[in-house]
């Protein structure tokens, strides 16, 4: 079993979310080639929110974000991403935590 065959989407499916459509709380700065920090997020994000698009840039989709802050710690200082909390009440809603 390789790492990439762990299906994160299936795991996120167990969770409850209230998605704030059209207002992503994490944004990636526009870039041509991703920095080292941005590349690290492809692996380090526990919800696999970061992915490479066809032209080789890192993109983020926050729908499954568990709001852990890992990407903030890695990539906010270099300005590669902009990180906020979702608006009050939106985002992940843990039943157990």
């Amino acid at each position, binding site marked *: *079993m390789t*790492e990439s065959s*762990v299906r*994160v989407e299936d*795991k*996120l499916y*167990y*969770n409850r979310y*209230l998605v704030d459509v059209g207002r992503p709380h994490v944004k990636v700065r526009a870039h041509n080639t991703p920095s080292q920090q941005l590349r*690290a997020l492809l*692996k*380090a994000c*526990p*919800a*696999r929110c970061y992915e490479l698009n066809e032209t080789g840039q890192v993109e983020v989709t926050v729908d499954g974000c*568990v*709001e*852990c*802050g*890992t990407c*903030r*710690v*890695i990539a*906010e*200082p270099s300005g590669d991403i902009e*990180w*906020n*909390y*979702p*608006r*009050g*009440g939106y*985002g*992940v*809603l*843990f*039943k*157990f*935590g």
Partner: protein
Amino acid sequence: MIDERFDAIVVGAGMAGNAAALTMARSGMKVLQLERGEYAGSKNVQGAILYADMMEKLIPDFREEAPLERHLVEQRFWMMDDRAHVGMHYRSDEFNEERPNRYTIIRAQFDKWFSSKVREAGTTVLYETTVTELARDSRGKVIGVRTDRQDGEVHADVVVLAEGVNGLLGTRAGLRERPTPDKVALAVKEMHFLPRETIEARFNLKEDEGVVIEAAGTISRGMTGMGFIYANKECISLGMGCLVSDFRRTGETPYGLLDHFKRHPSVAPLIVGSEVKEYSAHLIPEGGYKAIPQLYGEGWLVVGDAAQLNNAIHREGSNLALTSGRIAAEAIVHVNSRRDPMTGTNLSLYKKMLDNSFVMKDLKKYKDLPKLMHTNSENFFLTYPQLVSRAMQNFVRVDGTPKIEKERVTVRSFVKARSWVGLFSDACRLARAWR
């Protein structure tokens, strides 16, 4: 938002924020608490073990009402290599006492209950409200907060920042630094549901007895980290955490690591047949004493994880959060009762009181450990567990080799892997840091 003025505003309804709000409200102060989740606990993740003593100081009869899972009668430590574990168990019937010392809990449920107590004490609690910024006057004194509600500015004499490890407000306002990747661990966790009887049979428990397992070794693949397995009433909390800097360095994925842990032959039989109902992740402050920021200033205090008050060695955080929240509140109540202004000088009482508590004393005791573990992670989390496991197997397997020869093989394997000098220096440094 609210056209009133408050004596105090608390940001966050986690362990620290609830302890602070409860303590101030009970002394008659007018308190506003703001929480971004739909309900208290909806954003919070913990293992989770609750330490009764610190909870009792706030709500003496919490055992009668709080949603508790199991009281702990047994603690297991596992040192793991890929196919085995060497373990130490401590189990005592004395933990089956009338007022048990430690419980497993489910954080989202516990926080909801805790929050109801805070409201009963008279705190105004607003959920679904994200605080976006601290409001400050022209001299920089904190005078309140701005929120994402319409006209969302509210004022108070003092603001208690109980915003957790990833707190944005304090860092944005320049009151402390953002945690760096080597000072926080990322933990991922799953909730595995099984019938009560199955859990009790698998962990050798009766009724509400509980067990925790802490596991270290090759499961973290040379990174500084640990796994945990806690038995609740009808589910098992299972998770794994490693330093963010190690994840970045190795390119390991958190879910890959968790999956690997779940498949370990010592772990898999405990969860076989379970239904997973949640997957969560959260940071844990790991910097220890040396990472503690400035704890108070003009019109503000910081408590709990936001202040890095977390004992990673003993895996204690909620009790430090509860205690720092309570002590901060007691300091504020004291200043308030004398009608003194909430200046940094007056609020420094919080630091003095905290220094005298177990919180700072414990963190100070282990001030050198985080660094040692981080700089030697390959040895502590990969080499030694493998060596110990092989030595155990060599010792236990009866195959006609004379025992003296077995001993020699074990010693040789340790020296070969790490050299006498390396072993000696690791042992000395570990002993010194632990003392």
